[in-house]
C-alpha cells in the first residue's frame, strides 16, 4: 500500500501536469481558430467519431505555406549550431586549464563556473544590453583604444544573440568537459610524447579523443536549450533575428492564434526529439562504460 502511494503520487502529478498538457497542445494544433474565449474551436466534446471527422491539418499546412515559419526553424537551427560551436571553442581551453590547475584550486574554480548558473538568467542577459548598445561599454572601450572610428551596432543584431547564448550557456559546456579532462590519466600524454608525438599531436591524438564524451555532452547541453530560446533573441536580437521560440511567443501573446502556436510547438518538439535521443544514448553509453 505504501509502495503504491509512493509510486502513484508523483506519477499522477506528472501525468496530469506534464503528459496531458501535451495531448492538449497536440489536440489544439489540429483545431480551428475561433473568435471566442478560449480562441479555438473545441474538438472532442462531441465524442470520438466527430473528433476524427473534425481533425484537420490546416494549421500545419499553414506553417508550410507561410515561409516565415520554416525560415524561423532553419534560422534557429543555424543559430543554435553556430553558437554551440563557438561555446565549444571558448569553453574547451577554460575546461582544459581548470583540469591542469593545481589540485587545491579546482574546487574554487568549479564553484566560480557554477556560481553564474545560480544567478538569474534574465539578469545575465540584461547585463549585456548595457555593454553592447551604441553608447555602451564595449563601444566606449573600442573607441578609446582607437580600433574603431565610430560606434558599432551590435545590440539588436544576430551577433548579440550569439554573444548572449555563448555567455549564458558557457558553464554547461565547461563542466562536462572539465569532468572528462579531470579523469584523464596524465601518463597517457607522457607516453605519447615519449613515443615521439609533439605536444600538439599528443593533444590532438590523445587528449581530444579521451574527452570526446564531455565534448558531446556539453554540446547537446548548449544546443538543445538554445534551439527553443526566447529571452536572448527578444532582448538582444533585432527584428532580423528569427528564432522559433520568439515566433511561438508572438503567435500566442500578440496574434492570439493558439492553434498555430500549438502547431509551432508540435513541430519544434519533433525537431528536438532527434538531438534529445542522441544525447540520451550518449549518456547511457558513458554510464555503461563506467560500470
Amino acid at each position, binding site marked *: 500500500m505504501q509502495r503504491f502511494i509512493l509510486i502513484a503520487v508523483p506519477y499522477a502529478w506528472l501525468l496530469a501536469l506534464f503528459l496531458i498538457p501535451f495531448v492538449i*497542445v497536440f489536440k489544439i494544433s489540429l483545431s480551428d481558430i475561433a473568435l471566442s474565449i478560449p480562441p479555438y474551436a473545441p474538438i472532442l466534446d462531441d465524442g470520438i467519431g466527430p473528433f476524427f471527422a473534425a481533425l484537420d491539418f490546416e494549421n500545419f499546412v499553414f506553417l508550410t505555406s507561410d515561409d516565415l515559419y520554416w525560415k524561423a526553424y532553419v534560422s534557429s537551427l543555424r543559430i543554435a549550431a553556430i553558437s554551440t560551436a563557438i561555446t565549444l571553442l571558448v569553453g574547451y581551453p577554460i575546461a582544459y586549464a581548470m583540469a591542469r590547475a593545481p589540485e587545491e584550486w579546482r574546487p574554487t574554480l568549479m564553484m566560480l563556473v557554477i556560481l553564474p548558473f545560480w*544567478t*538569474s538568467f534574465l539578469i545575465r542577459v540584461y*547585463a549585456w544590453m548595457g555593454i553592447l548598445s551604441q553608447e555602451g561599454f564595449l563601444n566606449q572601450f573600442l573607441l578609446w583604444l582607437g580600433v574603431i572610428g565610430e560606434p558599432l551596432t551590435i545590440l539588436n543584431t544576430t551577433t548579440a544573440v550569439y554573444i548572449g547564448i555563448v555567455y549564458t550557456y558557457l558553464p554547461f559546456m565547461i563542466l562536462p568537459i572539465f569532468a572528462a579532462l579531470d579523469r584523464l590519466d596524465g601518463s597517457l600524454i607522457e607516453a605519447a610524447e615519449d613515443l615521439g608525438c609533439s605536444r600538439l599531436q599528443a593533444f590532438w591524438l590523445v587528449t581530444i579523443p579521451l574527452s570526446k564524451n564531455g565534448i558531446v555532452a556539453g554540446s547537446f547541453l548548449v544546443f538543445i536549450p538554445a534551439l*527553443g530560446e*526566447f529571452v536572448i533573441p527578444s532582448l538582444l536580437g533585432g527584428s532580423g533575428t528569427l528564432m522559433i521560440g520568439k515566433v511561438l511567443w508572438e503567435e500566442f501573446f500578440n496574434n492570439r492564434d493558439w492553434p498555430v502556436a500549438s502547431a509551432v510547438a508540435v513541430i519544434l518538439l519533433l525537431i528536438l526529439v532527434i538531438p534529445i535521443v542522441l544525447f540520451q544514448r550518449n549518456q547511457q553509453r558513458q554510464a555503461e562504460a563506467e560500470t
Partner: protein
Amino acid sequence: MNRLSWFNATSLTLGFAFLYLPMIILVVYSFNESKLVTVWAGFSTKWYGELLQNESFLDAAWVTIKVAVLSSTFATVLGTMAAYVLVRGGRFLGRTVFSGMIYAPLVMPEVITGLSLLLLFIGIGLDRGVITIVLAHTTFSMCYVSVVVSSRLMTFDRSLEEAALDLGCSSFNAFRLVTLPIIAPAVISGWLLAFTLSLDDLVIASFTAGPSATTLPIKIFSAVRLGVSPEINALSTLMIGIVTVGVISASLISKRKSVRQQQEEQAAARAA
C-alpha cells in the same frame, strides 16, 4: 603538473573575465548618480531608495518569494518520492513512461512547457494566479530535484536500510530514521535548486500567471524591453548579492559538515 603554463593562465583569466565582467559592470553602475546608465557621474545609492519605494516591484517580489517557497517545497517532496521510486521502486507497470516524464522536462523548451500548461489550466477552467504558477513551477522543478536526489541514492549503501528493517523498523521508519538523514544534503540542495529555478523563471511564469499575480522576472522583463535603467541595475545587484551570499555560505556549511562527519567516523573507527 603544478604550475600553470602561460597558455592555461591566459585562458583562465580571459574565461573568468568573460563570465564575471558583465555582472561586475552591472553592480558598479547600479551605484551611479546619473540616469544615463553608461556615463559615470559619481557614487550614489539613490536608485536603491527609489526601488524600495516602488510598490509594484515590492508586490511582485512578494509574489515571487511566495511562489518560490511553495513550489520548491512541493517539488522537494514529490521529487524525492520520484527519485526513491526510480532507484528503489523495482519494476512496475509504466516505469519507462515514468522515467521519461522525469527526464523530459529537463530538456523541454520553456515556451512549450508554458504553453501546454496554460492550455491545460484554461481547459479545466482554473483561474490563473499564484496557484497556477506554483503548480507549473512544482512540475518542472520536481524533475531537477529527483535527478539530484537519485544520484545520491544510487551511491548509498543499501545494507544500512536493510539492517534497520531487520532490526524491526517499519519501511517508513527505516526511510525516516536511516535513509533521509543520509540523503539530507542532496534533498537540501535539491530544494535550493528548485527555489532558484522558480525565482529565475520568466517564460513559464508569463504563460501561467494571470493579471492578478505578476512575478519579479515578468516585471523586470517588461521594464527591460524598453532599455537599460538604473533602477533595474539596482534590483539586479540585490538579486546577485543575495544569490552569491547564499551559495557561498551553503557551500561553506556543507564543507564544515563533511569535515565533522569525517572526524566522527574516524572517532567511531578508533572506538571500535
